[in-house]
């Protein structure tokens, strides 16, 4: 049965108190709790997305021996609020020849696709909105709405830069979905389930219990996933859809104000989501090293562990962006189809054979068990 955050909370005493407050109306209480938690998660992730822009500028400045934003607030931390106010007060320009309905729809599709993935992201063992049986599959499926948003944004602007950016974006996102999904499938094979609860629950807190070090194939799968995920989120060195030097700004060239803000926010939150997925699939997720307790303060510890892993990966993503040069379009496609996809299929078969031959034991179990 699907576990949800409300069913998790209902095992504590204060749930009965809340239930009495809502006159024993289960449905209304569940709805209110879901609404509240959804608002909390969306608010939190929007803040992380906003801070992402700040982190990006600060880290790039650090890598280039500059100072970066330091005027607004302490260390320039409130820069994102200033940016937000700037975006909201800007004039909302619609190109005269644009396809108006699709022009409105495209940023919303991007944002919907990203926010919908937050429903299954496991922040801790209890704080996961809905632990669906098809969790990771749902995440992969619903995040393909982003590609559609990019494509429609490029088409609806009716400008050649946008058009090229949108076409590139869509082809890149569907192509790289294949190696990413296949390497996720290898992990699903190891875990024996698609739900995030199952996948993270099969791992442990210490590195030798992570799926990344389960066997050599899973180790390679982590890197295939990372490269593919970078490309799927249109991050450098795969940011062909918005390559400044050739396409002005790609698919969001014609977007101004808050609509542009939606695209930028969607991108930064998607990077966060992708890092969170990598952390929970390969790096042990929210598991606290060494301790297995089921009390409420544990949730906070798990949350901190998860966020630490995710934000470290987030830093690596930004670091890669400011280190590596951009690929060409043909190189991008050959990397996907000639290298990543065969490697990912090889990994999947390798994982399957490993599971049969070694009866599902990881390297650490084999080594430690033999002594």
């Amino acid at each position, binding site marked *: 049965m699907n576990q949800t955050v409300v069913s998790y909370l209902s095992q504590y005493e204060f749930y009965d108190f809340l239930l009495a407050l809502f006159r024993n109306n289960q449905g209304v209480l569940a709805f209110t709790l879901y609404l509240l938690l959804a608002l909390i998660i969306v608010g939190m992730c929007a803040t992380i997305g906003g801070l992402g822009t700040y982190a990006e500028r600060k880290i790039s400045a650090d890598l280039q021996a500059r100072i970066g934003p330091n005027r607004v607030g302490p260390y320039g931390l409130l820069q994102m609020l200033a940016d937000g106010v700037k975006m909201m007060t800007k004039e909302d320009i619609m190109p005269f020849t644009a396809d108006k309905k*699709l022009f409105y729809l495209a940023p919303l599709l991007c944002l919907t696709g990203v926010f919908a993935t937050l429903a299954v992201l496991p922040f801790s063992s209890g704080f996961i909105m809905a632990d669906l*049986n*098809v969790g990771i*599959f749902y995440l992969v499926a619903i995040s*393909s709405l982003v590609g559609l948003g990019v494509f429609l944004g490029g088409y609806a602007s009716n400008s050649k830069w946008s058009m090229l950016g949108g076409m590139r974006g869509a082809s890149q996102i569907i192509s790289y979905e294949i190696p990413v999904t296949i390497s996720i499938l290898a992990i699903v094979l190891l875990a024996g389930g698609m739900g995030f609860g199952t996948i993270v629950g099969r791992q442990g807190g210490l590195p030798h219990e992570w799926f990344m070090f389960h066997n050599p194939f899973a180790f390679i799968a982590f890197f295939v996933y990372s490269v593919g995920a970078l490309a799927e989120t249109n991050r450098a060195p795969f940011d062909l859809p918005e390559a400044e030097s050739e396409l002005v700004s790609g698919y969001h060239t014609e977007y101004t104000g808050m609509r542009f803000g939606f695209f930028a926010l969607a991108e930064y939150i998607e990077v966060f989501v992708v890092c969170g997925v990598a952390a929970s699939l390969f790096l042990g997720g929210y598991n606290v090293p060494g301790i297995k307790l089921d009390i409420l303060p544990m949730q906070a510890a798990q949350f901190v562990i998860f966020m630490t892993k995710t934000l470290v990966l987030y830093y690596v993503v930004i670091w890669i962006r400011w280190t590596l040069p951009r690929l060409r379009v043909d190189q991008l496609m050959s990397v996907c189809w000639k290298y990543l996809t065969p490697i990912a299929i090889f990994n999947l078969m390798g994982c399957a054979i490993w599971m049969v031959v070694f009866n599902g034991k990881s390297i650490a179990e084999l080594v430690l068990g033999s002594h």
Partner: protein
Amino acid sequence: MFLQFLFISSAVLTVSCALGVLMVKNIMHSCVFLLGSLMGIAGLYATLGADFVAITQIMVYVGGVVILMLFAVMLTGGNDFVSRAQNLLGLPASMGNKWTYAIGLLVGVVFLLTNIQLIRGLTKALPVKTITNEFPSTVTQIGHLLVKDHVLAFEMSSVLLLGALVGAAIIARPRKQN
């Protein structure tokens, strides 16, 4: 309660977007309406407890087919398609006069009534199964069915997909003009 809400909204989305596919002139908008309709069907699958099928529907159609359709529209000249017969209300005169329309409407009404009678009869004749609101996980069962009972169809569909992949690549490849 929640299921009812999901069912009604999915049904409205499905039907209205399907009608949108039919009614709008712009083929690009038609594709986006098709997307809405397919998402609505995924919602209907979810109300039927078919979680795996619902997600597969979203995965294949949103991530693949609709984007492919949009690509095809762009590669074949976008929305420059010139034809007077783009929607039902703007049909050219050669396709019929008022009598053909009247007869068509009559046939449609008869068809609809017959179908409704048929469905009513079917639902009465069927054994009434008690429907619970419990949705057990279908993923494991589908996995077992795919590699046990339906393994031949599963393998054949993989061959079919490979054939489609190679065939599409060969057909769409630009050839040198002699």
